[in-house]
C-alpha cells in the first residue's frame, strides 16, 4: 500500500485546480499586460483570481500581492515593516522561536542590518502566549510576526488575540499562514491581521504561487524592480496558470473545510492515540489546539532518518524534523524550542494528512510503524541504556 502522509510538505494538485489551470496554458496563455484580446483574457483570469482570493481572506483585491510562494511573501512582509518602521526610528521585531526559516533567517539578516529581534518562547505545548507578546512590545516595535500554525508540530497560535493586541498598540501584525490557509478559517478583518503570507501548494494548489496580503494604508516598497505588475511593487510577468490554480484550490478548500476537518481530525486523533501507545513516545505540541492534519511524534532511542527510510520502503511517505533531512547535524529548531533535549529531538516523525487520506491508510500506518520503531531500537545503544534505566 502507498500512503502519502507528508501533506505539510506539499499536497497533490486537486482536479478542480488542475482543470482551472489547463486553459491558461493553451487558451488564455496571453501576457496579462498585453493590449490585445489574448492578453486581456489572461488579465481577466488574473483579476478574477485576485478578487476571489481576496473575498476568501475577507480582504480587498488591491491588498493582494501575488508572489512565488510563502518564503517570498515572508521576506517581503519583514521588509515592508522595517521600511515603515525606519521612518519612525522603530527597529524592533517581536516573533517566536519556532517560526519557519523564511522568517527566522530574514530576521537574522535584519539583525545584521541593525534591527533588534525578540524571539518569544513557545513553551512545551508549542503555543505562544498573548501576554508575553504584550510584554515584548516596545515603543520602537516595528512588527509582530507570529505564524498561524507551526509547520512541524501543527499547533495553532492565538492569532485573533495577538491581532487585537497589536491593533490596540498600533503595531503592525504579520502572520505566516502557509500551513493554516485552507485548513482553518482565516479572516484578516476580524482577526486584525495586517499582513499574511500563504502558498498554494499546501492546499492542493500548484507550486510556485503564493501571496502577501498587506492591509491598505501600509506603504509597500518595491520588492522586485521591473514592470508595472502587482501595482508596480513586484515586476515580472505573473504566473497566471498557478495563480488561477491557487484561487480554485483555495475556493475548494474553504468550501469543504468543515466537512473535511471533521473527517481529517478524526483520522489524526486515531493516529495520535495509536502512536502514543508506543512506549517512550510522545506527541509534540498541544493535543487540542492543532491543525486537523498534523501530528508530530518523538520516539526515544532512535534517529528520525532511519524511521523515514524504513517507512518509505513500506510505502509510507512521511517526514521528520531531523537533521539528516536538511543536511545539518542539528535537530529541529522547533522541537528544541518546545524544550525537547537534543538526543530526543533527533527521533522525530511528522505525519501530515489531507482530506484525501483514507481510514485504511491510517490503519496501515498504525500497523506498520510500531515494528519499525522496535527494529531501530533493537540496534540502538541509546535505547539499550534507556531500557537499563541508565
Amino acid at each position, binding site marked *: 500500500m502507498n500512503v502519502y502522509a507528508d501533506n505539510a510538505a506539499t499536497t497533490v494538485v486537486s482536479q478542480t485546480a488542475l482543470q482551472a489551470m489547463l486553459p491558461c496554458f493553451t487558451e488564455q496563455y496571453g501576457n496579462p499586460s498585453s493590449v490585445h484580446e489574448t492578453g486581456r483574457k489572461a488579465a481577466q483570469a488574473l483579476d478574477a483570481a485576485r478578487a476571489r482570493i481576496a473575498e476568501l481572506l475577507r480582504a480587498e483585491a488591491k491588498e493582494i500581492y501575488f508572489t512565488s510562494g510563502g518564503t517570498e511573501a515572508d521576506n517581503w512582509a519583514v521588509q515592508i515593516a522595517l521600511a515603515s518602521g525606519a521612518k519612525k526610528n522603530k527597529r524592533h521585531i517581536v516573533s517566536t522561536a519556532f517560526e519557519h526559516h523564511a522568517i527566522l533567517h530574514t530576521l537574522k539578516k535584519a539583525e545584521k542590518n541593525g534591527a533588534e529581534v525578540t524571539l518569544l518562547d513557545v513553551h512545551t505545548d508549542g503555543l505562544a502566549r498573548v501576554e508575553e507578546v504584550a510584554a515584548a512590545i516596545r515603543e520602537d516595535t516595528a512588527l509582530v510576526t507570529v505564524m498561524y500554525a507551526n509547520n512541524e508540530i501543527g499547533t495553532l497560535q492565538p492569532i485573533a488575540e495577538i491581532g487585537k493586541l497589536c491593533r490596540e498598540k498600533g503595531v503592525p501584525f504579520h502572520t505566516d499562514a502557509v500551513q493554516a490557509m485552507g485548513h482553518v478559517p482565516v479572516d484578516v478583518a476580524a482577526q486584525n491581521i495586517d499582513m499574511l503570507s500563504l502558498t498554494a501548494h499546501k492546499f492542493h494548489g500548484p507550486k510556485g504561487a503564493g501571496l502577501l496580503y498587506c492591509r491598505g494604508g501600509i506603504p509597500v516598497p518595491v520588492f522586485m524592480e521591473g514592470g508595472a505588475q502587482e501595482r508596480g511593487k513586484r515586476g515580472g510577468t505573473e504566473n497566471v496558470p498557478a495563480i488561477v490554480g491557487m484561487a480554485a484550490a483555495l475556493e475548494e478548500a474553504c468550501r469543504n473545510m468543515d466537512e473535511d476537518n471533521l473527517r481529517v481530525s478524526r483520522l489524526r486523533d486515531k493516529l495520535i492515540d495509536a502512536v502514543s501507545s508506543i512506549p517512550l513516545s510522545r506527541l509534540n505540541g498541544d493535543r487540542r489546539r492543532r491543525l486537523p492534519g498534523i501530528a508530530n511524534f518523538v520516539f526515544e532511542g532512535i534517529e528520525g532518518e532511519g524511521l523515514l527510510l524504513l517507512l518509505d520502503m513500506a510505502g509510507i511517505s512521511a517526514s521528520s524534523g531531523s537533521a*539528516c533531512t536538511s543536511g545539518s547535524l542539528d535537530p529541529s529548531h522547533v522541537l528544541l524550542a518546545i524544550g525537547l533535549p*537534543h538526543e530526543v529531538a533527533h527521533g522525530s516523525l511528522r505525519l501530515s494528512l489531507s482530506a484525501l487520506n483514507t481510514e485504511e491508510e491510517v490503519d496501515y500506518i498504525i500497523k506498520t510503524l510500531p515494528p519499525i520503531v522496535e527494529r531501530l531500537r533493537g540496534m540502538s545503544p541509546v535505547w539499550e541504556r534507556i531500557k537499563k534505566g541508565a
Partner: protein
Amino acid sequence: MAYSSAVMDHFANPRNVGKIDDADGIGEVGNAKCGDIMKIYLKIDDNKIQDVKFNTFGCGAAIATSSMATELIKGKTVEDALSLTNKAVIEALDGLPPQKIHCSVLAEEAVKAAIVDYYQKNGLEAPEGVKQCTSCCGDCTMH
C-alpha cells in the same frame, strides 16, 4: 540526498547487528546529542577479528557505515583492522552524500576505539599514532 544502493542495502539489511557478551574489545563513539552513536564489539583470538557486532543510533548512513565497517574487518588481523580508513568504508559503499561523510569517520573511530580497548584490556601498547578521534562532532564520549 540520495543514497547508493549499497548504502540502502546495508541500512535495510545491516550485517553483524548485535552484541558480544564476552567481547575482547568494545568501542563506543559519538554522542546522542549529535545524533550518532556507534558501539562496536570485537571477539579477538589468535590476533584475528573472529567476530564483530555493532549497535548504532543514527541515520541511515550511520547504520550502513557501521555495517560495512564490521564487514571490512571481520576475519582480518588486528593490525589490518586498525588500518581501516573511513575512505575505504565510503568506497565500499559506492560513496556517501557529502553531509554524511562524518558517519564513515565515526565508523573508523568506533573500530579503532574497540581495538584500543582490546589493547588496554590485555596490557598491550597501542601502536604509535592510533587516531582515536578526529573531533568530527566535537562532543563525543571519547573526549
